């Protein structure tokens, strides 16, 4: 289960911090359930609407309609008037597509207490791992102002997907640092990317900080309407909490480049904290009314068990 992105023979000789950094890509497995029917025919774990060789009871059918003598139900047949042979039918189980849509806009490059990019890498590779383990196809898209093709993974059942994805994302973050992507890029292409997933219903994990303008959120939710969307909110709490207690500072918005000065003091701290709380509440409400699953607020140092619990408990 342990898949190291860069397995090195001399890992023990390295300094503890760097070896820790590389070993951090160990994907963990979490579970999700799906309460809608898959329409695909690839064998998997999700219930479908078509009858077949599964174990989920669907109903009775005439032996003539469904000529499978080994599934003749004698009790049911005896109760019929006029007499006929009834056969039990079952539903098949099939795979679904699981997508990770990553917002790689500038605000995701915020350096705070939590390493948000590391969190994204970990979560997505774990998701790929978990999806493949459950027999589902994993695909990935990413977008800022444009869709980032470097992070595109078409849905696949390949066993090595998790490792490949981890490497791909890590490489992307490294390139982004040299290409100065941490400035002036918003998440405008996210709705488009969601549209491009195709008409087949899929389980979509939408990873973002959701520091979005209302219009963009509206568009995104609309675009994701016929998918099963799970918003995964990654927010660094140092952006609004744990600010320096007193002092004057200039701040620059990473996406719009807007500058603002903050005279930090108790009143403003209170305002910012209130606003953050209120924003969280309103974001939750937006997701609720849009019919997505309950958003998953990913904290740094998240554990697979917590994610599983959240996914199992929240139904769309």
């Amino acid at each position: 289960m342990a898949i190291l992105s860069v397995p090195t023979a001399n890992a023990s000789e390295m300094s503890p911090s760097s070896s820790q950094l590389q070993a951090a890509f160990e994907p963990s497995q979490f579970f999700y359930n799906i309460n809608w029917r898959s329409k695909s025919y690839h064998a998997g774990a999700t219930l479908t609407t078509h009858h077949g060789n599964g174990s989920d009871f669907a109903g009775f059918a005439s032996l003539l309609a469904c000529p499978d003598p080994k599934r003749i139900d004698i009790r049911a047949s005896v109760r019929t008037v006029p007499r006929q042979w009834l056969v039990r039918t079952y539903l098949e189980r099939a795979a679904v597509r699981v997508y990770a849509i990553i917002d790689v806009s500038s605000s995701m490059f915020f350096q705070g207490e939590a390493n948000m990019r590391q969190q994204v890498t970990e979560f997505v590779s774990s998701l790929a791992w978990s999806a493949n383990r459950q027999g589902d196809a994993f695909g990935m898209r990413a977008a800022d102002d444009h869709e980032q093709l470097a992070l595109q993974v078409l849905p696949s059942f390949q066993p090595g997907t998790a490792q490949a994805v981890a490497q791909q994302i890590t490489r992307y973050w490294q390139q982004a640092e040299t290409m100065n992507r941490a400035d002036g890029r918003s998440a405008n292409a996210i709705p488009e990317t969601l549209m491009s997933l195709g008409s087949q219903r899929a389980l979509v994990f939408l990873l973002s900080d959701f520091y979005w303008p209302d219009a963009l959120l509206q568009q995104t939710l609309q675009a994701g309407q016929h998918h099963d969307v799970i918003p995964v909110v990654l927010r660094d709490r140092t952006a609004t909490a744990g600010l320096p207690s007193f002092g004057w500072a200039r701040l620059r918005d990473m996406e719009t480049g807007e500058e603002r000065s903050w005279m930090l003091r108790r009143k403003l701290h209170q305002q910012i904290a209130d606003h953050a709380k209120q924003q969280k509440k309103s974001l939750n409400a937006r997701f609720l009314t849009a019919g997505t699953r309950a958003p998953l607020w990913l904290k740094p140092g998240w554990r697979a068990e917590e994610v599983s619990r959240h996914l199992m408990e929240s139904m769309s």
Partner: protein
Amino acid sequence: MWEEGAQTVLLASGFNEHWGLTDFWPLLLLPLAVLPWVLRGQMNFPHPALQGLPADPLSAWLDRLWKMALSLLILALSLALTGPYLKSQYVEKIGRGAHVMIVLDRSASMNEPFVKKGDDAQARVPKMEVARKVLKTLVAQGHDDLMGMVTFSTSPILAAPLGNDREFVQAALDATEAGGMGFTAVARGLGMALDYFADQPVTGARAMVLVSDGGAHLDGKTQDMLRAMFMRQKASLYWIYLRSESGVSLKQSLAEGENIDAYPEYALHEYFQTLNVPYRVYEAENPQAVMAAVRDISTLKNKPTRYLEPVSRQDLSQYAYGLAWLAAVCLICLYALELKRWQA
């Protein structure tokens, strides 16, 4: 068209008439004041999302204050570099004192010692020194008075014109330490002093303070002329008579049959009494007597007098530097307030 407009504005503001600039090139630096509003070089911290956050007026004003202070600093410094100044001009002032013209005798006889009852060597000071001491106290008092000074020996010299400048008169008095010489031409000295009243409206009491030991003979023609001048200028005369050891006292009248020409100071006294203007004589036998004269003169208060006082060219760049200082202090405070690191 632009040049004409600028010219009319400059003329209306009194450029070159009331004020001017020492240098013009620092005006080229003025546009630099726009820089704080245009440049984005200040240190800032990246933040993922600012749009939704509540606006804080105090913070916005602090930012504006920072920019304004920077602009002000640049403006004030470049203005200070241009060296603006107010040209010398006359300021109308209202005085309430008398116009006092001091006429000081600097003839050789003033070097003689002053009459004194005591005979010790210390008391034998020259009359000139006594006169100077007396006049200095007169000048030091009564700051509303306009004062001028004429010294005379054989011919009169204008030491200080009639005005409010006390320093001038004090300096002129100091200059008399050089010692006296020549004859005593009282008439010419008085004439010159009276001339100073000639071109001015009569707005206050005019006093001539003659400090002399007498010893001058006036012929009839000169007497008539002086009398006419005194009448015309309506000036009163105060004579501080410094009696020398050999001189006579003016208090007691001459004995019968004595020739008045033998006592020129007495003749002068007689003549002054015929001037038809207020006349007083103070016989300075001792400094106390002289002080009485000074007191009398300093009580000469009268109707307010208007006069123009020249003000020297005034440098205005100090105010610009003051402004720059203020702006700099403001900037330092803001810098101290600024966070250098985001993490607490």
